[in-house]
């Protein structure tokens, strides 16, 4: 969706390196969801951010939502081969229903 842009589209990193994936919205976000998709499988929910400036962590993955609630970043520290997959952000723009608009995804490869 052009409302929600992810960058980069793909990323290859050496194991142990840090990396950041960005998700930028053209409109103010009500909520931002991060998912991981292993190749050939469904989407696994990682984290949800709702408040401006909010930051959440799960194991070595940290997600932040900027103060203006229009951009989120996903940071992986000391990447491992298990982090490989497709990362997608999903935007919620209102409080009605649970409709999400998805970004194009970022394909991450981690070289051992």
């Amino acid at each position: 969706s052009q409302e929600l842009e992810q960058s980069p589209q793909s990323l290859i990193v050496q194991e142990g390196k840090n990396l950041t994936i960005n998700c930028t919205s053209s409109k103010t976000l009500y909520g931002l969801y991060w998912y991981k998709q292993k190749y050939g499988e469904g989407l696994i929910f990682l984290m949800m951010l709702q408040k401006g400036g909010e930051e959440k962590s799960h194991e070595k993955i940290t997600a932040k939502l900027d103060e203006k609630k229009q951009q989120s970043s996903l940071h992986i520290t000391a990447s491992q081969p298990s982090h490989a997959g497709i990362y997608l952000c999903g935007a919620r723009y209102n409080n009605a229903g649970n409709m999400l608009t998805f970004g194009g995804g970022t394909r991450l490869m981690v070289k051992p």
Partner: protein
Amino acid sequence: DAGITQSPRYKITETGRQVTLMCHQTWSHSYMFWYRQDLGHGLRLIYYSAAADITDKGEVPDGYVVSRSKTENFPLTLESATRSQTSVYFCASSDPSTQETQYFGPGTRLLVL
């Protein structure tokens, strides 16, 4: 099994044939969704349903039909399959009374020859 399941997981069909993809969830979530995932387009919403007997179009509904006679099931039918409908299809469900995420099924890979 609890959760959200899709069947079949893989399907090969020919142009012009009717195909139905099944989706079943055990949480009694009121909302259900169908997406297709294609390279360069990410996830695009085909149809969604807010409750049994209530459905609405998403971003790319042409060529698809849905129904929802029971809360737990949300089948997607391609009435006359075309090659452009070759894709990976994901079903999802959610509970709108919470801020929770959508929960996704494992996907169905469809190839239209």
